């Protein structure tokens, strides 16, 4: 089935419910607002709007939920760029270059974010309209060893994240990997490093950790330095000012294309989600850059890559969810549960029996990506007013968002404590030059790697050679080794060149 046929079927289905366009727009607006609030993650936002969808027709209700999801991915970047407090984990990577850029040119950073989000989402939707069936069939080939190797590629990207202090980046990453082992073991379910704590038995909750390490750490940093001047210049919220960033995107075609492909690839793999894709895309942007040392200071590629990738991946996560009945990420897991509430059974049968519904959902995502551009301007205006608030008022406000956001996930005060602990950890890591992003990446990838390694070894009967010689695994492992060794090789070559010059 071609793109146009899919578009035709999807638009036809949507047009048969004219009110659906208004409902999609409402879902999108809710998603942008929730997405911009630190601590209100994509799945949580979908859960919060779920009760509103009960009175709707099934297909329209699903489009509403999907539009909310798209909105959260868009909105998450706003607070990540402006306040260094990612609204959603998917936007964590925006901080590295988006925040430093926003300190000098906020409208440029936001322009790039909006454009790349839209490009990533639209292109991925078009690809998936064409290739859903084939991609889903291919993704089924992934087993534990492939997941292990894929996660290793993600970790190898960490070494690129810390070009200047690779050793420190590796320590941060190992710290994240260790923290991910706390709680119930993935193989035999044994309790690990809990020291009798019932809270730790369930493992360290990822969202409070991310909120703490990024947002609370920043507040502590300001508490130490007490900047008396405004942190950011005032944003020109006129559309013309945002076009500075929009125009700039044209110069990064290759980064966009690569990030879109990475996002697409990662997105369709069940269980990976769009957060990993943004980190891998960022790592790849650093690796392939001619000036990797400038990353982290506000270079446009550092924002283009994660924003394109996370939007492409968010569309991608819907493929395994709809086609295989396996959620692509935590947000699509909520959508999967909602489908069951509506009496649908996601899986290969949906493609055969209800292709209309499938294409309608993808067209709803496409429509949301286009409409989101129009919605983002008022959203930015709303959030940018916060920039005029002095730090002595804004910091407690951010802390309150962190507290409410951490508590709301499990209604557990211990999550608030974990958030502050990670805030302290993030503050001290940053103070001594240890990048915090690898800690988060380690926390996300740790369980995937561990599951892949232990289950994979059992599958291949503990034959390590058989484990690494599986075709996809081998390719991914070679990629991981190449990524990890590149900064070292580059350093050696640089030193040689300098010696020759002398």
């Amino acid at each position, binding site marked *: 089935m071609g793109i146009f046929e899919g578009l035709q079927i999807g638009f036809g289905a949507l047009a048969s419910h004219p009110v659906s366009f208004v409902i999609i727009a409402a879902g999108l607006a809710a998603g942008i607002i929730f997405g911009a609030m630190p601590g*209100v993650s994509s799945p949580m936002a979908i859960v*919060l709007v779920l009760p509103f969808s009960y009175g709707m027709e099934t297909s329209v209700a699903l489009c509403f939920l999907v539009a909310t999801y798209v909105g959260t991915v868009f909105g998450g970047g706003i607070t990540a760029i402006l306040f260094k407090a990612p609204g959603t984990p998917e936007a964590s990577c925006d901080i590295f270059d988006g925040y430093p850029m926003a300190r000098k040119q906020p409208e440029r950073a936001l322009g790039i974010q909006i454009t790349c989000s839209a490009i990533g989402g639209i292109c991925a939707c078009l690809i998936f309209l064409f290739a859903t069936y084939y991609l889903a069939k291919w993704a089924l080939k992934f087993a534990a060893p492939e997941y292990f190797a894929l996660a290793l590629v993600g970790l190898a990207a960490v070494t690129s994240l810390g070009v200047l202090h690779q*050793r*420190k980046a*590796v*320590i941060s990453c*190992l*710290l994240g*990997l*260790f923290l991910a*082992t706390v709680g119930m*073991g*993935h*193989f*035999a*379910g*044994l309790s*690990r*490093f809990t020291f009798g704590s019932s809270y730790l038995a369930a493992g360290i909750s990822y969202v409070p950790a991310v909120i703490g390490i990024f947002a*609370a750490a920043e*507040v*502590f940093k*300001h*508490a*130490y*330095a*007490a*900047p*008396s001047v405004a942190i950011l210049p005032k944003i020109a919220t006129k559309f013309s000012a945002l076009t500075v960033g929009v125009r700039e995107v044209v110069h990064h075609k290759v980064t966009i294309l690569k990030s879109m492909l990475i996002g697409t690839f990662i997105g369709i793999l069940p269980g990976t989600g769009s957060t990993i894709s943004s980190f891998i895309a960022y790592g790849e942007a650093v690796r392939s850059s001619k000036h990797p040392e400038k990353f982290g200071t506000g270079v446009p590629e550092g924002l283009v890559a994660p924003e394109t990738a996370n939007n492409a991946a968010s569309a991608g996560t819907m493929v395994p969810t709809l086609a295989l009945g396996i959620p692509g990420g935590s947000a699509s897991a909520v959508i999967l549960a909602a489908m069951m509430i509506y009496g649908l059974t996601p899986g290969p049968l949906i493609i055969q029996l209800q292709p209309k519904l499938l294409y309608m959902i993808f067209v709803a995502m496409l429509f949301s990506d286009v409409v989101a551009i129009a919605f983002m301007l008022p959203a930015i205006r709303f959030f940018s007013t916060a920039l005029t608030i002095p*730090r*002595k*008022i804004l*910091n*407690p*406000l951010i*802390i*309150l*968002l962190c*507290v*409410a956001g951490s*508590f*709301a996930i499990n*209604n557990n*005060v211990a999550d*608030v*404590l974990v958030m*502050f602990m990670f*805030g*302290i950890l993030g*503050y*001290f890591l940053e103070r*001594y030059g240890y990048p915090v992003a690898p800690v988060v990446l380690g926390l996300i990838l*740790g369980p995937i*790697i*561990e599951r892949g*390694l*232990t289950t994979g*070894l*059992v599958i291949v009967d*503990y034959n390590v050679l058989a484990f690494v010689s599986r075709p996809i695994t081998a390719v991914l492992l070679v990629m991981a080794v190449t990524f990890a060794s590149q900064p070292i090789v580059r350093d050696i070559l640089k030193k040689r060149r300098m010696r020759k010059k002398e």
Partner: protein
Amino acid sequence: MERTERYIILGLLVVSGFLLYVSREFQLPAATGYKVGDDLWPKIVLTGLIIMSVVSLVFGWKKQAEARIREPNASWLRCLVIIGMSLVYAYSLQYIGFVLLTPFFIGAFMRILGLRKIPLLIGLSILMTAAFFFLFRTVLGVPLPLGLWYFKEFSLLFCD
């Protein structure tokens, strides 16, 4: 490498060693027939941490620490007081509840950060708490900590 960083790395080395020792407990008995268990991955990660800590100490020991630019208004005391206050707040939330505890926490926070006008400080503390309580509890339907005993009864006065 700064002296404090050196101590932190040394601490990391000792803790990693201890945790590696603890991780032996997660090994599955040989009778199960499995050659891997819940101990495999933590052992790999902790060994990696030990190796990297040693590498950091060896290579960073003699390396001169970069000169740190001291900010004019920087204060360790302020930072530590805010960190301590945040931890006490997080711990006390379950007992005292969000409604009663947050205005005091926010007020103290703003005062430490330099907000001098008392009426503004009191007004903002109450306004922020009320706005968050309304947004999360009433609009989003997300519960916030109510506290225990009399504190809970007080918090319930503001619910519905």
